[in-house]
């Protein structure tokens, strides 16, 4: 029968060799009790190595479990699906990267060694606008993403990357729009020159930096039949707009041109 590890009034650890070179009860006690003693107990190379192996084994096991989980996606997803995307499978948006895993690893190592100029995509490709537009294409869009790739929008792209759908419609955020919709100032700060018969006027709203009011009247993509109101009083209130951005709840009414794969709420 094994000797109890903590029997007796004296602490066996006090006499046990800590360098891992000892044999017998003292060493067994040292290893089995190590976690209770904090990092000091792992000062020997052998112990540290063992801990390293165990951590590696745990990570390896987790890695294997996660990647053999199937295509459920719940484990790998960065967060909850955005409203309307709950039924999508991972592969609906995440296209496989070019080449075999071996080629991808090879290219990644080559990039790491400076033998390749650009990093390869490993596993899955980043989600591009084209993937979004497979379902959400609009023939008439007031802010089509490709127009923001023009060189003149260089500074604006740094502030808000309007050339990418996922800048606002960030997936796995659980929200329809992952910001507060107050980015119009980036491009429209010169609206002061626009003189339309509305109350308050555009110059007044710009002077007051009322960028929270834009989406109360205007639909960013312009894909709804609704005409913009002429007074802020007739516009939606701020909370309603924020609720729409958050949940995707209908706001602007009938859509001008629902795309074929897009759900009409």
């Amino acid at each position, binding site marked *: 029968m094994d000797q109890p590890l903590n029997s007796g009034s004296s602490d066996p650890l006090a006499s046990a060799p800590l360098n891992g070179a000892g044999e017998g009860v003292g060493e067994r006690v040292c290893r089995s009790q190590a976690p209770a003693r904090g990092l000091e107990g792992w000062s020997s190379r052998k112990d540290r190595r063992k801990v390293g192996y165990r951590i590696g084994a745990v990570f390896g096991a987790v890695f294997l479990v996660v990647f053999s989980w199937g295509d459920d996606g719940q484990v790998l997803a960065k967060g909850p699906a955005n409203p309307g995307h709950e039924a999508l499978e991972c592969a609906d948006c995440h296209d496989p990267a*070019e080449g075999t895993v071996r080629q991808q690893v090879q*290219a990644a190592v080559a990039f790491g060694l400076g033998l390749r100029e650009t990093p390869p995509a490993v596993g899955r490709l980043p989600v591009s606008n084209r993937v979004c537009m497979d379902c959400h294409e609009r023939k008439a869009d007031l802010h*089509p993403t*490709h127009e923001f790739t*023009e060189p*003149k929008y260089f500074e604006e792209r740094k502030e808000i990357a309007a050339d990418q759908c996922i800048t606002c419609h960030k997936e796995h955020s659980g929200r329809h729009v992952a910001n507060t919709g107050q980015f119009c100032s980036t491009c429209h700060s010169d609206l002061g020159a626009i003189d339309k018969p509305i109350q308050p006027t555009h110059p007044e709203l710009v002077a007051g930096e009322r960028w929270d009011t834009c989406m109360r009247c205007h639909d960013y993509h312009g894909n709804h039949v609704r005409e913009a109101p002429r007074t802020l009083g007739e516009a939606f209130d701020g909370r309603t707009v924020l609720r729409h951005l958050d949940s995707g709840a209908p706001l602007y009414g009938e859509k001008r041109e629902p795309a074929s794969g897009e759900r009409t709420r």
Partner: protein
Amino acid sequence: MFLRALTLLGLSALCIYLFVTAPPPLPEEGKAGAGTTIPMEQAFAVLAAENDEARRLWTQEIVGAGKKVGLSFDEDWEREEVEAGPLPALFLKETARQMQRMSTDLTFFLGSDAPIKEANRFEGQQALEFAEIRATGEPQFFEDTEHQDQVAMFPDVASAAACVSCHNDHVDSPRDDWTLHEVMGATTWTYPAKAVSLEELLQLTEIYRASTRGAYERYLEMAASFEDPPVIGDQWPRDGERVLPSADAFMEAVDRAVSSATVLKLFDLARADR
């Protein structure tokens, strides 16, 4: 000792896996493949020449001749209640939109220093390059270093009287003194590579043509829904009737007009690379 040997063995196996028995390396994005390498400036020139012909055909054969047989073209052509086709600048814009639907990094835009729509005004580097185009009439090339994009700008000339009259008469036009054959604006092309292979250039040309076809098909789709739809077939408005060529007929005409020059240019580029 055992662990060291195991580690060494593992690393050796990894090196063999990655390098010695390696599969063909993945092609690198933004780098020309094997074979003939074409500088992007030359590739842009091929694409711009294709665009010039498609644009000329649209402006003269569809808009110009179409108006004479009762077809309408309007800046609000996308509105359901408007029974009209896109004006030349908007046809180009629709072509650019069609291009966005494809898996390509090629983009192009139309702009000016005196546009009808303020959003189409050149700014920054584009404005500087356009000033050079206006002064010399020559295309300009530069690099968007931040995005590693190659950029080309080609002059867009008033090729028909309708271009001049429409821009001079438009209420939002900042100028009313445009003249025929004057440089009215420029097309800006971007692509994230300094060079492409011959095959890649052919693919880009295909993408451009498919985009042009897509734009024309969208017009035909809308024309078919007009209250009095024009007959769509092999005839052209120049034949004196309110008709439109089918997408096949339109693209065949583009093909006939530009393919010979494109192929000759490709031969020149292949020879120059040898």
